[in-house]
Structure formats: C-alpha cells, structure tokens
C-alpha cells in the first residue's frame, strides 16, 4: 500500500473513531449540561421565591395547615409549599402524579423557616422537556461533524498529495524499473522537505557510486584484456611463424608445438576469466530468440565428437519445445555446452547422458543427468567456485572454470541452477528458466 493511501486511511479512520465516540457520548454530555442548567435555574427560582416570601410574607402564599401548589397548564413546571417538620435541601429526579398523569420531574426540595413553622418548598421541572432537545442536537451535531470530517479528509488528501509528491517522483524516476548500471544525469527533485532532499541526494550518490564502480570495472576489464592479450598474441604469432620456418628441425617443431599448447591453455584461462568479468559487468546484449531444440541441436553438433570419443550415449528428450526470448545465444550455447561437456568428462566410459526439456509446474526446465562419478556431498557447495577442482576430477585436463562460466551465464539470465548428485552414481543439473524468458506455461 502506498504511503499516501495509508496516511489518508489512517486520518479518515482516526477522525471517524473520534467523532463516533463524541456522538455516542453526546446524550450524556447534553444531559449533564441540561441537568446543570436546570439545577441552576431551580436554585435561582427558589432564591427568587424565597425573596418574594420575605417581601410578601408567608401568609400571602399559604394559610396555616394548608398547602400551596401551582403548575403550568401543561404541567412542565410546578411549585408547591407545605408545612413539614423535617429539614431537606436536595435536587433529585422523581416521578409525581399530577392529575392522574405520572410525570418525571427534576425537583428541588428546600426547607426554610418562616414565622415559627418549617416549610418545604418544592420546585419541579419536567425532565421530558429537558430530554427533548437531545435527539435533534445529536442529529445536527452528527451532520455537521460528518461534513467537517469529509472536508478535512479532502484537505488532508490534497495536502499530503502535495507534500508527498517529491517522494513519489523519487520513487518513480529514480527507483522503479531502474537497471544498474545506467548513465544518468542528476536531476534534482524539487522539494522543500529536507527529508526528501536528503533521500534524493543519498539515492543519487548511491547510484553514482554503483555506476562509477561498474565503469571502473569495465575499464579494468578492457585494460587487463589488452595487457594480457597483447603479449599472448605476440607469442602466438612468433611461434606460428617459427613453426613454418623451413630450417627448423622437426624435434624443435615438436617443442614449439608444446609451447603452442601451453600458450593456448593460458589463452583459454585468460579469455574465460575475462568472459566471466564481462558477463558480471553486464556487457552482453540479451536480444536473441532461439528455441530450446535449436540450441540443444547446436550444442549436439559441437559435442558429438566428444561423445563418440568416450562412447557415451546422449538422449535428448525435448518434451516441450519453447522459444527463449531476450537471451544471449552465444552465452546460452556455452552454458549448455559446458554442462553437457562436464557430463561427458566426468562420466564413466560407455555411460549415458539424458537431457530433458519440459515444463515443471510454471517454469521451463532443462535437466542434464549423467551416469558419472558424481560429486561428494561435502564438495557440492564449492563446485561453482573459480579454479576449484574436485578431488576425483584432478585427473581431468581442465582448469576449473567450466562451472563458474555456467553459473555466471545462468545468473546473467536469472536462470536457476540446482544440483543433485550421488557419488559413484551420477549428477543431475537442473536449469530453471524464469517466466520472463519463456512466457507462461501453457494451461493443460
């Protein structure tokens, strides 16, 4: 979820919760306020009445042994006066029957002395009239508050959109879909928020560092390649020229040939190391389209002589043939060549190799199984390390770069490699292709 959506959601929810709480509490609050107000009024009326009693004398209102009572026609208020022999000074809710009607009142009861007698004054105010206002008040408050909430949410939305815009620009232009390395010119994202300025600058600096490192690596590869390849080239030409001299004896030629072989070995190692660096430095294009069948056929043509040499049978079972898109044909060829070549080299004579290409759930896989010497479990984690040679493979004339090439080519194409091996039984290398290279699996 986007930051802005989260903020807006939180704002809306928190406001709604607060307002709902307020609306729910509103009757209580109104009741309290009303009660207070009513009580105050009752006290004031009492004071006013007592003042009148003092002014006019008690006899004006009440004869001896009599009671005095008065209420409004609708009975929402009443006043009564009677002689009692106790003291009281309270305000409380009580029900009274007035002319057959039971009505809830807020009643102030107050006793006072006038002459020699103790009088009880009661002033009541119907609580029904008090509660009447609560409902409409609650309604109006609810509507006003809801309107205000919507307004503030809108305002929040607009403001957060405005204030977060630099962030979304940073994310959109500098992070999403960015493939490193790429040559970029720094474009400042305009913002007055210092956090975003900092973020923008930091991302820019990081990208710049990555780019410089890539650039440096690229220069290094280019220079190293030049420095290493040039002397090899000179030596190779010299040997080739000497080899053709008529006045060189045959036994010398044999030694020249040995030199040529060793030079070739040096050349292969250098070329392979440079190739791995180039792959890891992203210097290859991935624009070829080739079907698995064609690719395996190409490999087969190159490799069949090696099969024949060791009398190994190779079964190609391309159960599902797919077009690989956006790949580097040269590199994929070399990936498969090296895996199958290993399956030949580390096989037993008259052994077997099975290459299977098929969909396994959602991913296309190529599986290469041999009946060879296998890899010991403790050596399995190291087989992709450069120049790492396994104990049982020491007799083979390789320099331990076959699987590192495989790994870097697979990594370059985001192809997964799994190895299952049992010593003395054989190994299975499984390549799992990402959907990006094959498209989705057909629905069966």
């Amino acid at each position, binding site marked *: 979820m986007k930051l802005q959506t989260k903020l807006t959601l939180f704002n809306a929810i928190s406001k709604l919760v607060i307002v709902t709480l307020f609306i729910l509490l509103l009757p209580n609050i109104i009741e309290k306020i009303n009660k207070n107000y009513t009580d105050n009024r009752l006290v004031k009326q009492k004071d006013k009445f007592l003042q009148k009693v003092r002014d006019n004398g008690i006899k004006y209102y009440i004869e001896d042994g009599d009671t005095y009572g008065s209420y409004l026609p609708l009975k929402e208020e009443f006043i009564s006066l009677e002689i009692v022999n106790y003291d009281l000074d309270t305000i409380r809710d009580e029900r009274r029957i007035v002319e057959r009607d039971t009505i809830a009142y807020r009643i102030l009861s107050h006793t006072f002395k006038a002459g020699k007698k103790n009088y009880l004054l009661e002033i009541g105010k119907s609580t029904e009239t008090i509660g009447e206002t609560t409902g409409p008040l609650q309604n109006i408050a609810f509507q006003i508050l809801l309107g205000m909430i919507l307004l503030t949410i809108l305002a929040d939305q607009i403001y957060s959109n405005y204030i977060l815009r630099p962030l979304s620009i940073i994310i959109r232009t500098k992070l999403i879909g960015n493939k490193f390395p790429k040559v970029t010119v720094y474009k400042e994202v305009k913002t007055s928020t210092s956090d975003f300025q900092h973020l923008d600058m930091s991302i820019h600096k990081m990208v710049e560092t990555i780019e410089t490192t890539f650039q440096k690596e690229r220069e290094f590869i280019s220079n190293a390649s030049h420095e290493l390849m040039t002397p090899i080239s000179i030596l190779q030409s010299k040997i080739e020229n000497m080899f053709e001299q008529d006045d060189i004896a045959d036994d010398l030629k044999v030694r020249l040939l040995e030199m040529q072989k060793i030079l070739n070995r040096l050349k292969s190692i250098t070329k392979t190391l440079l190739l791995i660096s180039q792959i890891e430095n992203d210097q290859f294009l991935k624009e070829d389209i080739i079907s698995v069948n064609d690719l395996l056929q190409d490999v087969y043509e190159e490799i069949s002589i090696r099969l024949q040499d060791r009398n190994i049978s190779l079964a190609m079972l391309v159960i599902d043939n797919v077009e690989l898109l956006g790949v580097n044909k040269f590199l994929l*060829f070399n990936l498969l060549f090296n895996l199958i070549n290993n399956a030949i080299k580390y096989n037993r004579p008259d052994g077997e190799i099975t290459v299977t290409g098929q969909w396994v759930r959602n991913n296309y896989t190529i599986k290469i199984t041999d009946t060879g010497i296998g890899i010991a479990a403790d050596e399995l984690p190291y087989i992709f390390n450069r120049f790492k040679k396994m104990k049982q493979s020491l007799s083979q004339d390789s320099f331990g770069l076959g699987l590192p090439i495989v790994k870097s080519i697979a990594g370059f194409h985001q192809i997964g490699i799994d190895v299952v091996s049992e010593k003395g039984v054989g190994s299975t290398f499984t390549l799992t292709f990402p959907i990006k290279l094959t498209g989705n699996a057909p629905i069966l």
Partner: protein
Amino acid sequence: MNVLIIEDEKALAHELEFFLVKNNYICEICYDGASASEKIAVNLYDFILLDLGLPDYEGLDLLREAKKANPEAACIILTARAEVTDRVKGLDLGADDYLAKPFSLLELQSRMQAITRRKFGITQTVIDLDGFLVNITDRTILYHVNPVNTITKKEFDLIAYLLLHKNRTLTRAQLSEHIWGSVINDDYDSNFIDAHIKNIRKKLSVFAPADWLETVRGLGYRIKTNV
C-alpha cells in the same frame, strides 16, 4: 597486394609483416596513429590491418579516415580490447572483418583470402583432390559425380581450412582454434581433431583412399596437392 599494418606493438607488427611477406603480400608498417593517418591519406592499399588500441589515436577515427581516403581497401580490425560494443561499432563503420587478439596468423590469412574472393567475385572454388571435387563456396564434396554427403559441418570446416592453407602443416591447436574458436570451455588439452580426421578418412575411403590428407607425425595435418 598492398597491406598497411597499423600496430603499436612492434614485435607483433614484425611478425605480421614476416608472415604476410612470406605469403606474397607487400607490407608497410605504422607504429602510431599519426603516421598511419598520413600514409592512409597518401597511398592506396588493398588491406588495412588496424589495431584499435593505439596510444595516440582513437582507432575508430582512423577507421573513418581510412574508409574515406581508401574506400577500396579492406579494413580488418585487430584488437585486444574486450569491449563488446567495439566490435559492433567497428563493423558499423565499415570494417570488413574483426579479429580479437590473440588470433592465429592462419586465421588472419584465411579472412584476407575470403575478402579477396568476395571482392573479385570468385564464386566457385572447386578444387580437385585425386577425384574428390571440393567446392568451398557451396560446401559440397563430390567424388567425380557422386556426392559425398556423409561429411558433417565440422568435418567440412576442417577440410576447407586445411585446403585454404594447402601444402602447409597445420597443428592441432591451430585447427581446433579455427573450428572451436567460439566455444568457451575449460579443457586445455583435449582437442578432438584426431577423431575428426579419422572420421573424415573413413567416410572418404568409401569412395577412394584420401591419401592427400596427410598426417605429419607429431606435428599435425596437411593437405598435399599440386593444383
């Protein structure tokens, strides 16, 4: 044929010259871009072998100059730089071929021959080897009138390369570099040239013994022919 060698590594330039002179080319050498630029402007060449990594000159600029002043010349780029884009750029600028160092002199010669053939419109190259008619351009072999179609692509490549350098002993290393040059793998000693030659001989012997395909003991192979 006039060849201009532009190469700042003197030792390599000399080997190139030695090799080409022996193969009847007339060579001039430049060790730097400035003098090469002058030579290109004044003289006409059939071939310009250009090292891209010159210390004083941007190699691709020199290629542009060469294409302008010497439009007839075939330019072959020789480079030890590993930039993949260099190759694309060079060929885009009109280079006729591109050889990454280290390359075999034989490979250079066969590329130069291929360019010459292309240029002079030699479309049919049929060579008669004791009745075996090898057509380099169509990549076919006939024994008199009977097609020899058991020969694989790799095997034909081998025959054609040996034929291109006929009467010359080619080592296993040279042959395997030619036919497996683009395969990157970690074997350094195993080459399967012997197995290939054995297969070729077997397939040809169905028609007639291929005595012209000679094994030079301890050294390599050679096609011997007078034509």
